[in-house]
């Protein structure tokens, strides 16, 4: 589904990613771990099509098509979703209205009619109860005055509403208490199926206790230096990243 080949990318002339290779298939959950500044969030942004990041070399393929030149909204229409590390606030725009617009813009791009209000309402009810979201939150301005946990849960809510094929979760666990972590993880598990894929980006192995990945990758200085199964995450939790750094040298 997602294939990244020898990806190099820089921001304002500064190289961040230095030859990333990654392959994610349908039905898989991947975890990407790495210390601060290793390029984790950059990779999420590049996959999503953020224009501040310039691809200098390499390719990103999504569903067998190269997407290097696609805009962020076009990639979203193709089925790529990113849960933001820092979701932005848009005052005066309700959560419901935002999600409705997002769903309908994607449908429009695919040549489909707008979703009927009834269908939309049904879907909102179903998905919000899955994440234990109070309906009052849905009529509030997008992320405005939300607690850290509410923001992250709202990201996952958008994900389950939009039903993307690839979900990239950028540090979704940061700032969550244990209860919220469980709710969010549960949402991701329910979402995950044979037809979609999840890429979890995280510092800590904590979230991976709930969302058990099929593959774990470690990124250091803009490169994936090691891949393995869940046990790799445990090892990092125990020993940190230093042993890996030594191993590469």
């Amino acid at each position: 589904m997602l294939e990244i080949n020898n990806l190099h990318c820089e921001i304002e002339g500064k190289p961040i990613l230095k030859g990333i290779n990654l392959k994610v298939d349908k039905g898989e959950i991947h975890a990407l771990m790495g210390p601060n500044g290793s390029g984790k969030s950059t990779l999420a942004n590049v996959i999503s099509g953020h224009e501040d990041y310039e691809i200098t070399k390499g390719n990103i393929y999504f569903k067998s098509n190269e997407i290097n030149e696609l805009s962020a909204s076009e990639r979203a229409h193709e089925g790529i979703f990113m849960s933001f590390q820092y979701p932005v606030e848009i005052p005066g725009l309700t959560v419901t209205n935002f999600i409705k617009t997002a769903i309908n813009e994607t449908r429009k791009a695919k040549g489909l009619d707008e979703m009927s209000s009834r269908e939309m309402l049904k879907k909102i009810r179903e998905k919000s109860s899955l994440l234990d979201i109070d309906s009052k939150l849905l009529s509030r301005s997008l992320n405005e005055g939300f607690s850290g946990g509410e923001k992250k849960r709202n990201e996952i809510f958008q994900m389950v509403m939009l039903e993307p094929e690839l979900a990239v979760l950028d540090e979704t666990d940061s700032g969550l208490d244990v209860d919220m972590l469980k709710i969010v993880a549960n949402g991701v598990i329910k979402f995950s199926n044979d037809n979609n894929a999840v890429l979890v980006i995280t510092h800590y192995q904590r979230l991976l206790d709930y969302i058990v990945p099929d593959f774990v990758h470690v990124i250091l200085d803009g490169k994936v230096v090691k891949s393995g199964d869940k046990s790799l995450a445990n090892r990092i939790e125990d020993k940190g990243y230093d042993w890996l750094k030594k191993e590469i040298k």
Partner: protein
Amino acid sequence: MAYTEEELKKNLETKEYAYGFYTKIDSETFPIGLNEEVVRKISGKKNEPKWMTEWRLESYKSWKDMVEPDWSSLKYEKPNFQNISYYSAPKKKQNLKSLDDVDPELIKTFKKLGISIDEQKKLSGVAMDVIVDSVSVATSFKDTLSEKGIIFCSISEAIQNHPELVRKYIGTVVPQKDNYYAALNSAVFSDGSFCYIPKGVKCPMELSTYFRINQAGTGQFERTLLIADKGSYVSYLEGCTAPARDENQLHAAVVELIAHDDSEIKYSTVQNWYPGDKKGRGGVYNFVTKRGICHDRAKISWTQVETGSAVTWKYPSCILKGNDSIGEFYSIAVTNNFQQADTGTKMIHLGKNTKSTIISKGICAGKSQASYRGLVKISPRAENARNFSQCDSLLMGNNCGSHTYPYIEAQNKTAQIEHEATTSRIGEDQIFYCNQRGIDTERAIALIVNGFSAEVLNKLPMEFAVEAKKLLEISLEGSVG
């Protein structure tokens, strides 16, 4: 395309006035220039009674001795008042009973505006008193209104048919000498609307007037007088668009509202006059005096969406004379390219327990400049007066400016006054967030701007809110949203 600052700028620059066209209507226009003779001639054309002619002449004499004010933050070339024609009327002046009698060119104009009058009449129950180039050419729904004793007609008609009401109220809220432009308007006003709601009557429909400046080089001087008698209610809508033109057009209107005891007036405006091209050439000068007086327990609400005009100078105000009276001001002002707006309100608290609310939203793009200028005045005998003011600005790009000048004069210790102000920008991160959810940049800007304006848009009557949202989008985007 994902958003970058440069692209946003380009988007905004390529926006052209969607309503730029010129309708050929056979008009009769006075030669340019202003003197006593011209004032007499205007009055004569309209067959006005002597007192009206005299009132105009008094105004003209005051105006001659006044100087154009320059205290605002606006920079513009002062109009040459001797280079303007003060009267222009469509020539076909037979009495029109239905829209079939209206000049077909005019109907075309309305269609271009997307406003088919007959459709509006049928669908929304809005009575329109259509004003094109100063003279009212079509009115409707008069019968329904007259059953309730409501008078809704052009001010010229009111001077003929209800002189006692006009004479009693005109100039009582905005005196002839109030300011330079009010004096000019009082001398040469060509037409406008008049509305009287009798005691205890709730006006059953939204009253609406459609203003348009049409003839090249004619200034338009509208005069609106709206009286709500005791215990009555009226909601009045005023919407404007104008065709594109190279030379500046001057517009100096006066609106007077009188809200008697226990009455309520809701006055909503959508203003979309030609703002000039992207290099700042042309565009309407909009110097308006709008003021209302509230008697005991009366309420006046001003709601405005201002997207047009090259220069706007406008402060819809409330004199809260009666005890327990309420004044409200809700405003969205959008400026783009080289537009300038100096707008706000004055809330003059004279009575006890008077309340006022001010919500002002400014959206600036291009190289435009917008100022909020407001006065909250609590007089010595205004016990327990309360005011809440909120002024928010949203900036797009790096070349525009937003300024807030809140004046507060409190002469009574019991007053409670709150003022809040914020300035924010449409961030690239907000745009990217929307893009990532499949919403393109143009739609994203519309969502953000509409969200920012929601508090004020919600105050508009339904059908107007839809039009207003569209206008915001037209004003700020590459194409019509």
